[in-house]
Each structure stands twice: as C-alpha cells, then as structure tokens.
C-alpha cells in the first residue's frame, strides 16, 4: 500500500521558498502571481499503518518546530495547485535519504528493508494566477522539466470536488534479463549498417562498421568464438562496447585524424598526422625537456595525458592534479541534472588519478546565450535564462554539497550558445607525494587483482552518454542520456576511498564516467593485459537491465578499483562500515581478452588489442581561407562616461557576483585570493589563490582564459589570446610564469565536411590553426599542457535550422606561488598611488566588446607579442616578490577603460589619469585606446616611494605612468581634454546592475 505523507510549513513560519518561486514566475516568465506556498510529499511504499504512524510520531520526515505533517492532503487556500514528481528511474536523492532514515528509525532488516521505497514530489499552491493556460505554462517552463519530471494540477474547484492527488510510485518496472542478442552484421548492407548505428545511438561510421565486420570475419576469431560456444556474429554488448570505446568522446578521433591542411593564404598544403600528438603532446614534450635541462624548478610534470588528470609537483610532500571536462549535451536537455552531473563527474577524475587524489577546488566556466533572449525558440531548446539558472543551481549543489570550493570561473555570452550551452567543470586535487612509500601518481592493476566497483548502483541512467555526446543535439536525442548526480553518495564513497588509499588497500583506481564499467575496467585491464567479469554480480537500482545496459550504463558515483586478493576482505569490511556498497565483479588477468559474462552466458569476448587499437584513423580535409570582414574605424564617442558605464554593464563584462556568492568559495579554509575582491568584496578578481597545505604559506593559483569571439576572425589568435589571458590572470595575482601548467578544453562545432556541414573544411582549418597556436604559445611561455579534453559536436539541428557554437577553447592554468602573503588583488588600495599601464595598445578592435556595443565591424584581431609579454610577466613577478606593487589587474574584455574602472570600483578609490602617453600605436582615437583588446596588458599601482625601484626593474619595457589614485572620482583625460569623470559608486552600480537578480 502507498502512503502519501504531506509536509507543510506551520502558519507562523514564512514560506521563503514559495516566495522565491513567486519571484521567478514574475521575473523569469513575466507572469502575475500573488502568492506561492509549498508542500512536500513523500510517497512511501512497503510499510503498514502502524509503521507509518511511527514514522510520523518519530518526526522522521518533518521538523516539529517548523512543520505540520499529515497522511491527508494539507493544501488549502489556493486558486491552483501543481504537483511535480520525478519520472521512474530518475535519481531521487531525497527519496534515498528518506528511505535510509526510515530504515534506521523503524529498525527494518532484510526483505522489509528492500521493500521500503520513498518517492518525493513537490506541491506548489498558487494564488492569483491567470487561469489554466498560465498554470500549465508555469509548470512546463519553470517547475518541471518533462524529460525527467511529470506534473499534474487542479483548480480549487476540482480540488474541493476531489481533494488530493493519487498516490504514485515512480517505480521502474522490469524483469531481470540475461538476454544477449546477436547482431547479424555480415549480412547487412551499408544502408542497414548506418541505420543500425543511428537507431541505437552508436555513432559509428560506415568505415568503423566495416572494420568491425572484418574483425568478425577473421577465421582465427571465428574459430576461437566457435570453441567458446559464441556466435560468429557480434553480440549486442560487443557492438555497444566497441561503440563506446571508439566514440569520439573516448577516442578523440578528430584530434588523432590524418588531416590534409591547405592554407590558401600562403598557398601551402601539408599533412598533420594527429593534432593531439603533433601539437599538444608534442609541445609538452619539448617544454618538459627544456625545463629538465634549465628550468629553475626542473621538470615539475609528473604525469601528463595518460591518467584521468594531469599531475605536477607542488612541494616535496604534495602533488597537484587537474582536470577539466565539459557536460554540454546533457546540460542542454536538463540544465540542472546535466551540470550537477558535470561537476560531480569531474570530481571523480582527480579521485581516480594516480592512487586517488583529495579534492581541493573546482572551477566552472559557462557559455550561454543571453538570458534576456527574446523570440521563438527552436524545438527542444530551453530558454537561455532557464539554462543559466539550472546550470548555476546544478553546479551549486554539486560543488557545495561535496565540500569543494569553487575558486575560479566565468560566464561567456554569445547568441550561438542557444544551440548548445557549454558547461566546463574542472577539479583540482592533491596527492600526498608518496602513498605507502610509492609515488602516488603511478598505479597499475596487476594480474590476479580483483575488480571491485564501489559507490552507487547501476541503473539505466546515462546509457549512451558517450556516444550521444559524439553527435549533434537533435529533436529526438535520448532522454536516458540525462542523469542526476548524487553528491552525498559520492562524498561517502570518497571518504571511504581516501582511507582505503592511505591503508594501501588497492593497486589501482579509476572512475566510472563515459562508457561506465565498459570503459573503466577495459582501460585498467590494459595494464594487466585482460580481464574477466560477471555482470550478474553487479548491484542494480532495479531489475530490467539487459547485460549490455549494465556494462555501459553511466550511472554516477561509482569508482572501480583493482584490489589484491589478500586485501579484499579488509577493503570490503571498511567499505561496509562506512556505509558504502562495494562489489567484487571479476579478476584482472593477462590473457588478452575483454571477457564479460552474465552468470554462465558470455556477453563479450573481444581482443583487447582490437578494442583499443582497432579504430581506423580518420582522414580529413581542412582548408583555411581568411574570412572577409569589413574593417571600419572605431567611432568617436561624445559621452565617454556613458559608454564606460554601458561597457561595464555588458553581459561579458558585468559582475557575476550573483553566481559567485551562491557557490561556496572558501570551504576547506584555504582561500587566499577570492573570486570577489576589494573594499566591499564586489570587484572582480583575476584568479583564485589558495593554500593546498594549511600548514604552509605556499599557494596554488587557478586561472583561465577564453575568447571565442576572436575565432570568427582567426582561431589561431583566439587560441593565442586564451593562453595569454590565462597566464596573464595568474601573473596578475602574483604567480611565477616558470611554475605553471595548462589544461586545454576544445569545444568545437562539427568540423567534418558533409552534406549537413558544408563548411567542415573551414571549421577543421580553424581547429588546425588553434592547435598551431597552442604549440607556439605554450612553448613560448614554457607552460606545458598536462591534461585536456575535446567536445567536437556542439551543433544543434531542429525546426529546419542549424546552430553551431563559435569554436571555443577554455585554457586553464594552475601554478605554484611561493608565498601567498605576496599575492596581489585588482582593487585600488588607497589614494596617492601611481597607476601604470604595462604593455602596448594597438587598434585591435576585431570582435571586441566595444565593437559590439557600438555596432561597428573591425577585422583586426588582437595578436600576442610573445617575447615582450614573457619578459613583462617575469618582471612583474619579481616586482611583486619585492613588494613593489600594491594592486594589479589585467586588461581583457573591454580593454584599458574597463580595467581601470574595475580597479576603481573595487577599491572605491578614484584616480586622476592622463592616457596620452600610454604605449600605443600611432593614430588611435579615444574609443580605440580605451577599449581595444590588445593582449598581454596589465594595470598596476605602485606607492610613490617604490617608483624608482619599480621603474628600474621595468627599464626598457613598454609602460607608462598615467597618474595617481585619488579619493575622488575616476577622471580620465587625454591631451589636456577630459574624456570622462565618473564617481566610483556610479561605476560600481553600472557593473553590478545587469545580473543583479
């Protein structure tokens, strides 16, 4: 029997969550509403009447100070009532906690325990809404995402006639199944092969299908399969495993393709055999060699590109690892669940790096269309404000509940992200340099080690995530690809695993991400040389999964370990004690086979070599032709003060405090430079700094660069600027250029020429050029890439239109800061200090914020002058070490004008500045000098007594003293003409108003 336990606030308790929903109805949907109140509903299955009475009496589901509780409907005094519940199979975190709590309170054991299920739903009681259509709109566009949730509603009249909603259990019904189907590949035509791939979200190309067919036609393979009693044709699971392992997501086929590159500007053609090997891995190799030979800190890279995260040395006792991921496609369909899963998912990368890292901090970068977007949305796309809010909240819950501070991030706005938002989530972890006397960044699964899966159970969630994200988003994209993370189950697993690590209870660890067990076990088995596993042992959330589904499910919060047999008992005992489910599933061996059973039935038997090395190399064409862009001069502007305030309010520049404050950025107590700085904590910070070792003054800087707009002019300079921006941001807080490492995250639109992508050659040429720049600038700065990721199909197709994102690279930097007490922040500190601009301004207004604001076109993309920038960054570090600099801020979006304004508003300190002598090319008008986005520039303040020492350090470099800070307004002049005079409070207001939600 099902009980509906309803929990509502007592009359004297203000319903602030209801008020928030009412605000959202008004602000986000623009609809009228007088009041919203909320009632929480727990639908309980598996208890009798006495037991449910005990639950109510024990206060297990309510707080007697706050709530009233009833088995009858509680709702009264409303015009309309909406109830939102989860669809069957969707992760119900609160339901799980309620279930555990009731088990404990009632002391249930055995089958009684298994029978108890709790499903949560939420009621919203509306007063003053405008009829049924409005209620439906609120339900659909704000309260429920029908992909994962269901809703029902009643008017007050209907409620009076029939109070309450029917009790519903969001139960997954299904029979357990050991069915393994055989796919008759050999008899299929090419059309049928393509149809099979598409219908099953396999994302396999025809060539790949042929390669698979050929493998099964091999007489040796046939004979072997016959001996084992296996079908000559592939099983469904084998096809699925191959599809996962060979997916773009897992194999990075475009980055490893053989590319014929034609540059029409130079008339040259050449071949690139793997962008990854040539540029990314190649440049890191060169940099490491140089560092080993002559770097002041030696080659601090410990593990690059081979593990879940890249690892560098932080100190003799501590190593640091870093990984950034994207979770774009799921976030497009369900922004909250997609982003939540993105962040808790990337947490597992450091957790599964080396012997397992402690989680230190997160960083998040989002790319959205304007939240103020107006007009019709193409089918299946959500409004950007809804995407924004969902993603923000998903990352909030994922990060905050996991106890990992979000120390750095940004939001980039461009209308093309309407088709697919980008959700970059990164996590940095620390490893004790040695675990059980061995270097912690190394691991190896040995033959004989037991395969153990720990954490959550397996369900249908996330099936086909890897292959799904290797396709464009379309109207029929599968809902199972969406899942909801569970930070607390993960936290419990993490607590357990860190203990198990320190006790030396396993030999290797990796996470279950894309491809689930299929990938995690398959990858670990490359160390040992094979494995055998029984899926019938795998713990399931519910019956009804077929073996192939168990194998590739991407259900969250799971890690796979290689546990030596003699440690297994201790491992399992500790796991049980700490409330974590761990299950031995099989054994690693050296027999060369990917052998999976379900009981006695063989599910897969593939050669490890074929699985991992069998994917054919793609051969692609790239053709670079410089886009023809009109080049107009920057207009002269009468009201420069007004322009400055408009610039500060632009989406890409304005304050993101709304997001920042909702993210815990100082849990763990290590924070040294926060995301918001200044006298009132409302100025933008350049980078985050924290102390990984609480007992030490040594710091870690975390920064990033991202400049997608420049890709419209030349992706080479887009990449160069992203690297420069990331490095510059780190330098701005006082980091040492000589001890940094980078992470590249490419998000591209489909660059493979086809009927639906007629400009594939150009998009691929953009990719080639971005990679060339990556190699040039990483080497130039001596900042090696140690990890990275690519997401190559960020296109949307539907309703007869295609939207492709601008090619976007997030370049993230981590670096070691010798002493956090010498860090710098961007706020002007006090009146009477000298203000310097470092670096040269050119008429580089192409794709700039000001060009967009004023509506003119410019063809000149900012270029990075490597040598001068490098020298500037090294000198600035020296100046900061000597204590000569009191504040520092980089010039990026909005150039010098915006940088000066941000420094002034952050410190609530004005300045009297004359920009006449700022280093610049000749002939720049005021608008250009103030807002050109030339790279590598910084603004610093210096106390008058340090003037000589500071200028001596920078002798021969491009810099100018513009004037002094004051206790008055920000006044800028040029050649004795005042350009603008603005009160710092007005600048702060302009900066903060746009996203002041």
């Amino acid at each position, binding site marked *: 029997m099902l009980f509906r336990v309803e929990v509502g606030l007592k009359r004297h308790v203000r319903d602030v969550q209801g008020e928030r929903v009412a605000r959202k109805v008004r602000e986000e949907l623009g609809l009228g509403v007088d009041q919203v109140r909320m009632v929480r509903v727990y639908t309980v299955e598996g208890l009798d009447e006495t037991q449910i009475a005990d639950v109510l009496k024990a206060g297990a589901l309510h707080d007697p100070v706050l709530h009233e509780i009833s088995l009858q409907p509680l709702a009264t005094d409303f015009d309309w009532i909406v109830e939102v519940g989860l669809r069957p199979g969707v992760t119900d975190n609160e339901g799980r906690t309620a279930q555990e709590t009731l088990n404990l309170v009632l002391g249930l054991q055995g089958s009684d325990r298994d029978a108890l299920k709790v499903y949560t739903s939420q009621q919203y009681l509306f007063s003053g809404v405008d009829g049924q259509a409005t209620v439906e709109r609120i339900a659909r566009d704000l309260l429920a995402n029908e992909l994962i949730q269901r809703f029902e509603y009643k008017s007050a009249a209907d409620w009076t006639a029939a109070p309450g909603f029917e009790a519903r259990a969001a139960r997954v019904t299904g029979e357990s199944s050991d069915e393994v189907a055989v796919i008759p590949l050999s008899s299929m035509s090419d059309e049928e092969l393509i149809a099979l791939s598409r219908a099953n979200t396999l994302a396999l190309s025809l060539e790949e299908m042929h390669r698979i067919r050929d493998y099964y036609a091999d007489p040796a393979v046939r004979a072997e399969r016959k001996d084992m009693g296996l079908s000559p044709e592939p099983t469904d699971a084998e096809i699925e495993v191959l599809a996962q392992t060979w997916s773009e997501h897992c194999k990075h086929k475009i980055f490893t393709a053989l590319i014929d590159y034609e540059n029409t500007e130079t008339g040259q053609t050449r071949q690139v055999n793997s962008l990854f090997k040539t540029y990314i891995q190649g440049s890191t190799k060169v940099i490491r060699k140089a560092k080993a030979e002559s770097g002041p800190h030696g080659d601090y890279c410990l593990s690059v590109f081979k593990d879940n995260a890249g690892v560098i040395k932080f100190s003799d006792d501590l190593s640091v690892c870093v990984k950034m991921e994207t979770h774009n496609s799921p976030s497009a369909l369900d922004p909250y669940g997609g982003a939540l899963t993105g962040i808790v998912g990337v947490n597992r990368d450091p957790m599964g790096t080396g012997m397992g890292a402690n989680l230190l901090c997160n960083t998040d970068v989002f790319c959205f269309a304007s939240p103020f977007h107006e007009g019709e949305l193409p089918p299946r796309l959500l409004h950007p404000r809804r995407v924004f809010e969902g993603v923000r909240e998903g990352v*909030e819950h994922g990060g905050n509940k996991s*106890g990992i501070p979000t120390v750095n991030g940004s939001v980039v706005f461009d209308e093309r992200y309407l088709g697919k938002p980008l959700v970059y989530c990164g996590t940095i972890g620390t490893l004790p340099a040695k675990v059980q006397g061995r270097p912690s960044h190394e691991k190896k699964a040995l033959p004989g080690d037991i395969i153990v899966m720990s954490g959550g159970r397996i369900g249908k969630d996330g099936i086909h995530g890897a292959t799904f994200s290797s396709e464009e988003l379309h109207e029929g994209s599968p809902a199972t690809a969406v899942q909801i993370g569970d930070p*607390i189950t993960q936290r419990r697993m993490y607590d357990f695993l860190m203990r198990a690590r320190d006790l030396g209870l396993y030999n290797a660890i990796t996470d279950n991400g894309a491809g689930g067990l299929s990938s995690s076990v398959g990858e670990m088995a490359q160390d040992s040389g094979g494995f055998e596993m029984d899926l019938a042992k795998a713990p399931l959330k519910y019956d009804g999964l077929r073996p192939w589904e168990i194998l590739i499910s991407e259900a969250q919060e799971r890690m796979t370990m290689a546990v030596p047999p003699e440690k297994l008992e201790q491992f399992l005992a500790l796991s049980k004690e*700490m409330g974590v489910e761990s299950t031995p599933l099989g054994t690693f061996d050296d027999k060369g086979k990917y052998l999976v059973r379900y009981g006695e039935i063989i599910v897969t038997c593939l050669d490890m070599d074929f699985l991992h090395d069998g994917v054919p190399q793609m051969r692609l064409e790239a053709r670079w032709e410089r886009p023809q862009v009109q080049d107009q001069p920057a207009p002269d502007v009468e009201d420069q003060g007004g322009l400055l305030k408009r610039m500060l309010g632009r989406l890409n520049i304005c304050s993101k405090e709304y997001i920042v404050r*909702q993210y815990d950025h100082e849990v763990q*107590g290590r924070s040294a430079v926060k995301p918001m700085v200044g006298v009132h904590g409302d100025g933008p910070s350049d980078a985050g700094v924290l102390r990984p070792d609480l007992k030490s003054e040594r710091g870690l800087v975390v920064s990033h660069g991202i400049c997608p707009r420049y890709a419209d002019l030349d992706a080479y300079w887009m990449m160069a600027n992203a690297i420069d921006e990331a490095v510059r941001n780190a330098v701005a807080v006082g980091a040492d250029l000589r001890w940094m490492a980078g992470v590249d995250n490419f998000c591209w639109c489909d660059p493979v020429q086809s009927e639906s992508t007629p400009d594939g050659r150009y998009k691929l040429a953009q990719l080639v050029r971005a990679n060339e720049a990556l190699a040039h600038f990483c080497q130039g700065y001596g900042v090696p890439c140690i990890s990275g990721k690519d997401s190559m199909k960020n296109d949307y197709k539907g309703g007869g239109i295609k939207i492709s994102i601008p090619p976007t690279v997030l370049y993230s930097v981590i670096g070691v800061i010798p002493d956090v007490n010498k860090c710098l922040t961007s706020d002007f500190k*006090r009146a009477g200090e000298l203000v310097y601009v470092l670096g040269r301004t050119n008429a580089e207004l192409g794709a700039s914020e000001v060009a967009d604001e004023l509506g003119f076109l410019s063809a000149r993309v900012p270029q990075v002058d490597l040598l001068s920038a490098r020298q500037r960054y090294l000198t600035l570090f020296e100046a900061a070490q000597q204590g000569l600099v009191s504040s520092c801020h980089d010039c990026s979006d909005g150039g010098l004008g915006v940088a000066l304004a941000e420094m002034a508003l952050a*410190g609530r300190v004005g300045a009297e500045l004359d920009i006449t002598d700022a280093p610049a090319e000749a002939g720049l008008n005021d608008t250009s000098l103030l807002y050109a986005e030339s790279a590598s520039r910084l603004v610093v303040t210096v106390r008058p007594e340090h003037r000589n020492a500071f200028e001596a350090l920078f002798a021969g470099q491009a810099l100018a003293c513009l004037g002094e800070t004051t206790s008055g307004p920000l006044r800028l002049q040029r050649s004795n003409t005042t350009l603008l005079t603005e009160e710092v409070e007005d600048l702060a207001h302009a900066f903060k108003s746009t996203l002041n939600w």
Partner: protein
Amino acid sequence: MVPVNALVLTGYGTNCEQETAHAAKLAGADSADIVYFSDLAAGKVRMQDYNFLLCPGGFLDGDDLGAAQAAALRWRHATTPDGRPLLDQFKEFFKSGALILGICNGFQLLVKLGLLPAVGGKYFERQVSLSHNDSARYEDRWVHLKTNPESPCVFTRGLDRLYVPVRHGEGKIIPRDESLLQQLEQNELIALQYVHPETGDPTLEYPYNPNGSPLGIAGLTDPSGRVLGMMPHPEAYNHRTNHPSWTRGDNGKLGLALLEGGVRYLKER
C-alpha cells in the same frame, strides 16, 4: 593543565573537518582527531577519550529532509556493536564536562538534537530550528558578529567583535514559539549576533544579517555555557590571507579566537 583532546566529527556529508581540526590545533588543542561517525558506531573510537567535540560544517545527507535532520535521527537511533545507544555515549560525554562546538551544519545538528538551546535545562528536546534564509538562497559572504558578555558561553569570554564568513542556505533561527525567543534573551543564551558594521548593533538588515534570523541570532549557547552553536565559520579564518580584503591591510582577530576561548577554558579548569 588538562590536555585538550579534540574529536572532530565527520562522515555522511560533513566537509569542513580538515580545517576545523587544523584550527583546533592552532587554537592550542593538544590533539585533534578526525573521527567518522561510522568509527563511533563501529565502537572503534569512544567519545570518552576526548574532552572537546567539534561538529564541523558540511551537508549532512545533502540537507535532504532539512539540514541535519537525518543525521539527528541517526544519532538518536544508532547503536554500537555492544547494542548500546550511541546517544548515551554522547550524553555521558556532555555530562563529563566536555566542550561542544557546532559550526554551521554542526550547529544545525546540535539544534535538531535538542542540545541547544536547552532552555530550562531541557536537553535533547527540540526547542528551536534553523530554516531557509529569507533570500531562499545559499550564500557565501563575510559577516560582522558581536558576542554577548552576559552569556554563560565559555568560548566567547573576553571577545567582543568578530568578522568571519557565513556559507549556508538554512541559517534562520525559528523558535518553537514567541515565548521561547524571549527566554533565549532573558537567559542570555544568545551568544553571537549579526551586527551592522557601522553601528555595531544587532541587525535584521540584509546582507549584514544574511538570513533574516530574529534578533540577529548567529549563535546560541546552552545554560552551562559549554555548548556553542553558530552559523558562521570561525575555522575558515585561520590565516591572515583568509580575510577577504587582507591585501588592503585589513585584518583583525582571526576566527580562531573563538576556539582558543574553548581551549583556554578546558586548560584552566
């Protein structure tokens, strides 16, 4: 002098255990062990071996069912392998004269367990609760606090003002009824209040009072003064560079001062 042995409790979603243990040591504790709830339940660790319990911040059970609600029930119903209720151990620990500090989620736990405020000496009866901030948002921001010199609280003795961060979504005190709120005042159980930075007076004004808590209540003590629960995070101000505007030369008393008060009390007892 009595050695101060701190038990820093964690597990099931607590996440401030590292810095809390670090802060306890900086504040002068002779030892600070991070202990999982499961260690207590397994009988591996006994509370009686300690004299200072710290319940750190975090998200016990993800705030599902309300902050620390599920954890409070876990404490009420868990037993050690010998069949003894864990809560008995807790009660004995408190009776032995030990100190208890609950921070943020740890405060929520103490309140939901009924250890705070224990008006009228009625321990383990829920008299107040902590509920959603008026903004219905989780927020991370620094707040100004004042202590109550009339309060029996041993942690705040000799302290006046503090500047520390809050990081919570459910920090507003809701009393069982109005009379209870009066009793909190009359019995001087309000140990810490949010104040306006300029006037120094307790405030309801956002964001100085970040959650709308009545009387600006930021922390409560019990009649014995040996228990303190507070929403702000003193352990998060353990180093001068934690201060949000330290680069402007702003500093002042570290949040550690509160823990030092507790350690001093134990040592001098």
